[in-house]
């Protein structure tokens, strides 16, 4: 008994010593890997990367008269800041106010984030846990569509929505008949859902397929059908993947301009579209553009900082596996 006790003690000592040596070696290599020059280069890049944003940010708090007569960097010598730009911008009216377009962005983004996730989760479960012939080919086909530029799909999709489908002289589908209906977000919801599906199916499938089959079997033995398994096991277990994709999709829809350009009209412009129009017509009204930009950026930045972990995970899963 004593011998073995001594043995364990010495083994523990040895392990501790090795660990110490390892951390030392690690520290050394760490010091040498990041030379001062590299650190300085990194800091220079970080500063260069931040200055343009910082400049516009400072500008958004300066009185309009100052903005157009002196550079934002003069603020350090004679500071004169105000938040009136933001109040004016929120109420600035260009068919709709910037404040309204901010709400439109929310109305577009929330459903357009939820729909594709749920529909894709259904399909991903089908791809992962129900066997059928031609599954792989279909999966690759769906995923390949992900790289197709949306531009290629826009024209026919818009004509399908607005004037329906006519083959030759034979009228088939009358379309959604929502043209010029300013309050309707249906077309933009549907379009975003469609375009998001390939990536959503791919990401969720990777995750859902990795759920241990024992869990599924156990549920099946207990008498659960596919519906219950999906609702009670698959959805809760794939929450990390769903969260990751939800953030990607939320940012992508909130930041989108192209789909909004085609599928929204004056009354339901999101903030990106309104800002682009303002940038064209009021190109020199920097008090408006700077405050407007930061109003549009606030939500993505909040989402980004609050949920960075999931966001990075989503990016990694989406890119490295593709």
């Amino acid at each position, binding site marked *: 008994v004593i011998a073995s006790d001594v043995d364990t003690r010495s083994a523990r000592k040895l392990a501790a010593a090795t660990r110490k040596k390892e951390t030392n070696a690690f520290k050394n290599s760490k010091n040498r890997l990041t*030379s001062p020059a590299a650190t300085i280069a*990194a800091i220079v890049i970080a500063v260069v990367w931040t200055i343009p*944003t910082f400049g516009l940010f400072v500008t958004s708090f300066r009185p309009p008269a100052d903005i*157009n007569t002196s550079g934002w960097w003069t603020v350090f010598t004679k500071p004169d800041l105000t938040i009136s730009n933001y109040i004016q911008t929120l109420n600035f009216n260009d068919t709709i106010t910037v404040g309204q377009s901010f709400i439109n962005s929310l109305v577009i983004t929330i459903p357009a984030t939820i729909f594709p996730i749920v529909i894709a989760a259904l399909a991903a479960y089908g791809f992962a846990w129900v066997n059928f012939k031609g599954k792989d080919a279909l999966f690759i086909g769906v995923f390949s569509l992900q*790289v*197709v530029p949306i531009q290629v799909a826009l*024209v026919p999709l818009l004509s399908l929505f607005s004037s329906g489908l006519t083959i030759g002289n034979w009228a088939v589908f009358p379309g959604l008949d929502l043209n010029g209906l300013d309050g309707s977000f249906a077309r933009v919801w549907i379009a975003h859902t469609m375009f998001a599906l390939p990536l959503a199916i791919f990401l969720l499938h990777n995750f859902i397929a990795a759920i241990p089959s024992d869990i599924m079997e156990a549920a099946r033995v207990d008498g659960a059908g596919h519906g219950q398994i999906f609702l009670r096991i698959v959805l809760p277990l794939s929450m990390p993947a769903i969260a990751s994709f939800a953030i990607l999709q939320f940012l992508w829809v909130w930041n989108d301009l192209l789909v909004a*350009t085609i599928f929204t009209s004056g009354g339901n412009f999101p903030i990106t579209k309104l800002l682009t129009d303002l940038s064209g017509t009021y190109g020199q009204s920097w008090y408006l553009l700077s405050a407007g930009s930061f109003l549009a950026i606030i939500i993505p930045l909040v989402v980004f900082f609050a949920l960075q972990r999931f966001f990075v995970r989503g990016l990694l899963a989406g890119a490295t596996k593709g």
Partner: protein
Amino acid sequence: MTAFFRWLAGLPPLAQIPIIIVAFGVVIGLILFFVEVAPRSGRGYTVMRLAVAVVVPAALVLILGVYNSAVWLVGLAAVLGGVLFLLDYRSRQGKGYVLQLVAFMAPALILVAIGLFYPVIRTFVAAFLSNDGSHFVGFNNFAYVFSGGSQGLVALINQLVWVLIAPIIATAIGLAYAVFIDKSRGEKVLKVFVFMPVAISFVGASIIFKFFYDYQQGAQIGLLNQIVVWFGGQPVNWLQSSPLNDALLIIILIWTQTGFAMVLLSAAIKGIPDEQQEAAELDGANAFQRFRNVTIPGIRPTIIVTWITISIVSLKIYDIIAATTQGSNNTSVLSYQMVRLFENLPPQTGTSSAEALLLFVLILPFLIFNANNIRKQRLGL
């Protein structure tokens, strides 16, 4: 469905969110309920399966709306549903199996077919039709795109410049940055600075840089021109001087994508075992040699994936051009111009589709690469 959407459109915007989500939830709930009970045996369940298989497709056609001349489509849908029921009834994996599968897959597959597959085919056809779509014109649209009269050739060349330059530089800077900050103190904070632009929209980024590039008579308010002035130069109207303006717009894309590259590559670098670095160090390799002979080979697949992902982004670019120059002064690219041509009155659908097709050809190698990649991955599983 149109009636529902029209009613919804009359409500205040914020009120529309909960209503559409609840409506969507009900539909999904019905699908899941059906999937749950479909495989149960007994006469009642068989009748239910038959009823669902026949009625749902027919109802779907009716709900979407159909012209009187095509009313027989409702019947066709019902018959197809019936065939599906028979297939299901005789399925080797048990009753309800096929119907369950269809219930899981159909919503996504139908949406992808309508939203991506059908439009791509239509665009292919439209590229060879006249602008109003009335008659076949062969390759005339392509000839027009390449002729000097349109901006098509400029747009094509610019697009190539974008896709050749932006991905390489963004990946290179992202890699350099990831290596520089790897294991340094404050790595997380340093990461945030470069990564933040990833969350900012292209529109926001464009306005940020438009201000950075701003040109004025007299005192400058754009930092770039002020720097030129500080060094004793004359301020330049950057966005109007071709071909420099192209490079300045590409910088906006690089600015947004570098953070993305950095995060991917940083994760890959952390995946390289420390022992490899240490072994190289013991062998007397200096920092650069270790970078070239250990780091680079270790993360090569990630470098390629990063480069490809940013290339695809460069081929889809629209927002940056729309929010800055709107294609003036020779800055247009195909992916921007084809949307503009379509927005013209009357829309130049033929020319626009021809440009879309060119864009598709450019993206084809990436599509094939991705498909191959994933096929390998699935075989490996």
